């Protein structure tokens, strides 16, 4: 049984992105997707703070403090890039112009509900950023996450217990164990990681997992 590493998860997801797609990558594991663009394809990255055509991090010392991504890290701008203001940036998001957003998750429910911005702890400072806009507006939402929390709790659940980011928004989930589609009937297994048994994944999933369609 071979659970996928974070890099392998990102690589697997990248295979499902079509050539020419406009993509917004969340902070964390989703950023690894840029390392695994399949041969012959080109993706254009959008960062909600006002850049389309985002390139990799600059060489040490060659960056601009005012050329950053949504994670506030320095990036570069590729040929064909464009800068714009925040309202235009979220017009792209809310208006359905982006093809794909890849996000992390605290929980995903079998009806596609996503919780990824707050654990709802009473004393925590809430912070949402652009997550709610992204899930409400981008054509496809792929979640890239470990199948379970560090404590072994399922992240794929029957109903989210954490505060929601959006209702019925997630299309696909890529984990260390499997690729799962969110359908009207619930979680639909698409693919298992090498040698991972179905039951192993079902046992770690908090809702029924429909077996791979023949």
């Amino acid at each position, binding site marked *: 049984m071979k659970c996928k590493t974070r890099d392998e998860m990102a690589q697997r997801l990248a295979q499902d992105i079509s*050539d*020419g797609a*406009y993509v917004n990558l969340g902070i964390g594991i989703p950023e690894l997707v840029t390392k695994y663009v399949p041969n012959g394809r*080109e993706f*254009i990255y*959008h960062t909600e703070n006002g*850049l*389309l*055509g985002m390139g990799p991090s600059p060489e040490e010392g060659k960056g601009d403090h005012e050329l950053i991504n949504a994670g506030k890290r320095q990036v570069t*701008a590729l*040929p*064909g*890039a*464009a*800068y*714009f203001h925040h*309202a*235009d940036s*979220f*017009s*792209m*998001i*809310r*208006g*359905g*112009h*982006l093809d794909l957003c890849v996000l992390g998750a605290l929980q995903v429910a079998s009806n596609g509900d996503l919780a990824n911005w707050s654990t709802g702890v009473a004393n925590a400072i809430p912070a949402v950023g652009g997550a709610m806009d992204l899930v*409400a*507006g981008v054509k496809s939402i792929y979640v890239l996450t470990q199948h379970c929390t560090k404590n072994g709790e399922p992240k794929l659940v029957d109903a989210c217990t954490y505060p929601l980011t959006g209702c019925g928004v997630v299309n696909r989930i890529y984990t260390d164990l499997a690729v799962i589609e969110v359908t009207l009937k619930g979680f639909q297994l698409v693919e298992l990681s090498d040698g991972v048994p179905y039951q192993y994944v079902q046992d770690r999933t908090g809702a029924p997992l429909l077996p791979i369609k023949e």
Partner: protein
Amino acid sequence: MIDKRVSSVAEAVADVFDGATVMIGGFGEAGSPIELIHALIDQGATNLTVVNNNTGSGEVGLAALIKAKRVANMICSYPRTSNSTVFPELYHNKEINLELVPQGTLAERIRAGGSGIPAFYTPTAVGTPLGEGKELRLFKGRNYVLEHGLTADFALIKGQTADQHGNIVYNKTARNFAPIMAMAGKVTISQAAQVVDLGELDPETIITPGIFVQRVVEVRNPALESTLVAAGETYP
């Protein structure tokens, strides 16, 4: 390699279908994508709903499309123009419907449509015939009407310079409705006097980022409506 260039205006508009809603850029002749409109006339799609500030002039461009009876519904702010005889005739014969929208409301509806905003409130037209029948709502003691976002199956616009990602810059007041129509069109098609290599446009000065544009076609010396009208030209 992402390349949104197509090789001809005919190819660019080939899939416009009967009954489609088509936004067409331009304010008067400034920014009017005449070559794309003429290609649309050749292409034959009919029963169109067209969104443009005006109704064209003479018998070229938008006026020619209307004269060819391809336009069932016209959404605009100012259908009367000098040299505009085509629209009045069809309008009086009840061969074309008119939805008259205040210019700023038209612009905002288009921008809203492209921005995923289904509706908004505006003070424009409150208490006038163009506000009649619309939902009124008070905010801080003032009345506003509810207006809805507007999208289109296709947007035809005219840029000055474009690249293969669909980034566009415009010429002076030819910009007008093009950037917002590009946002509101499901398929946005831009003609441009020049298509340059990727990286030649300064990312700081791009007006329409390529994400809003699906096709780009180079039309090197675009015709000007007033020149064609003055020469007595008609299309086809």
